[in-house]
């Protein structure tokens, strides 16, 4: 048990709305009403990882030791442009066509 007495903060509806913004999901008010209490329950259930996560325990991010992998620096075939673009919502001049990135006045 870690020395500090850290209580898991309750996840509020406002916080869920803020997180959804970060995750780029336009949740509706009805969804917020539905999801926020569920997320609070889930968070409560998973917060117990704190009980055994002592300071002396190393972190593991992966089941196996990771190593860097290089391939030979040789040209090899890749997807032709038309295939790479085949699933795009919009295409222009052999490129992905996307909505504006900047504001009108920028």
């Amino acid at each position, binding site marked *: 048990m870690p020395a500090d007495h*850290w209580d898991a903060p309750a996840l509020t509806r406002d916080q869920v709305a803020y997180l959804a913004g*970060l995750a780029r999901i336009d949740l509706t008010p009805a969804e917020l009403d539905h999801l926020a209490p569920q997320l609070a329950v889930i968070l409560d259930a*998973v917060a117990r990882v704190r009980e055994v996560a002592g300071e002396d325990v190393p972190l593991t991010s992966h089941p196996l030791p990771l190593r860097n992998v290089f391939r030979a620096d040789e040209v090899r075939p890749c997807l032709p442009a038309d295939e790479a673009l085949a699933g795009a*919502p919009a295409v222009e001049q052999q490129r992905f066509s996307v909505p504006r990135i900047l504001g009108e006045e920028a």
Partner: protein
Amino acid sequence: MANLTRLTAAELSKRLGAGEVSSTEVTEAHLERIGAVDPAVHAFLHVDADGAMATARRVDDRRVAGETLPPLAGVPVAVKDVMATRGIPTTCGSAILAGWVPPYDATVVARLRAAGLPILGKTNMDEFAMGSSTEHSAYGPTHNPWDLGRIPGGSGGGSAAAVAAYEAPLAVGTDTGGSIRQPGAVTGTVGVKPTYGGVSRYGLVALASSLDQAGPVTRTVLDAAMLHEVIGGYDPMDSTSLDAPLPPLVEAVRDADVTGLRVGVVRELGGDGYQAGVRARFDEVVALLSDAGATVVEVSCPHFDYAFAAYYLILPSEASSNLARFDAMRYGMRVGLDGVADPSAEQVMAATREAGFGDEVKRRIILGTYALSSGYYDAYYGSAQKVRTLIQRDFAAAFEQVDVLVSPTAPTTAFRFGQKLDDPVAMYLSDVATIPANLAGVPGISVPSGLAEEDGLPTGVQVLAPAQADDRLYRVGAVVEAMLVERWGGPLLDRAPQLEPSA
């Protein structure tokens, strides 16, 4: 001629090799079966009849020409819709990818094609493999062939139901926390999660990259071994692929023997949280292993009690990052905004993800975003990573005492539709026994263990082995299967109700 859809892949392989039957006939029989029962089962999201028949004809031609073909050439297979298939739609059970046709094959798919297996189609799944029931598919759930009012497990319920309903002799799935093994248990079929890195992840749409692993979904242990040998092995296209040969798996089935093998019963994966009938069938399997000459002991893996909590932090964290690729720019859905003349990319992205993702995906993305946010990172994601270390240590200590671990695969039999849909934590607990293996990267198999007395539905036993000792799964699985089939007087699936062909 015997009903070709009732034969195992091993038996089909033998008859195809002997020229007693053609792949065209076998593939046609399965397509007919799909046409007859899939309206009720809904295991498939897409059936590629033309592609499957074209492959079958090619294999038949090559065989007639005297070519030596791989063992499973001509035996049809169903592919979970999370794997990229060139020219065949791939949706991951999500509306956001409706109609997407990948321009390339996943390595698993490329290997199936190279080995001459006709691909029947793509199987249903919980959206982006998030779920334990297939109820989170945007295209409607798959129905369990044992009781059409119940779930087939998940996320790979489509693959499991397809083999259980004799729509395909073989299928492939992916297992991030139990998505191959738990559907196997609740449909009376066999499912294997190989060692992490043992099967390439290239071309699998990623859920949680440090947990995902593809594997076989079959009706028998031998069939699983044969399929595992086709799809497994080193792939330079996956940076986490193990650069080592697979242990001999088919041989492990053929020479199956547990004499002197040390089997550990995991104390933490049993008890009150498990349905009585699941426990009863599991206890019988343990007794059988003992009768067969194995040494059975109880082992404790104390941190397995925390695996579920760690998993539901690590998985959403990785998923929230992986699913950022669905941004409405390069593939998939893009929606317009009502009343906004010239929306920004950010607005389009948020509106598309709102429209394209289902509830469970939204829940997990938001949970992962929270767990990774500064201020909470150490408390949640960091602590979960420490638990992961502790679970790996539990496995290491256990495998010093025993050769394999055993437990029930799932705590309950198949539940009814809707029963856990709005109680995410109850749904998540379906994977409580399968999650530890993914956190540690070790391999696991689920083999049918019988029917629970209280509801007459299938139960499964799980065998876990150390990393890269996948052959032990097959050795033990084959012994359990042989002893139980002898006791039952035939395969468990023979007791499943007959499905009525739809009009």
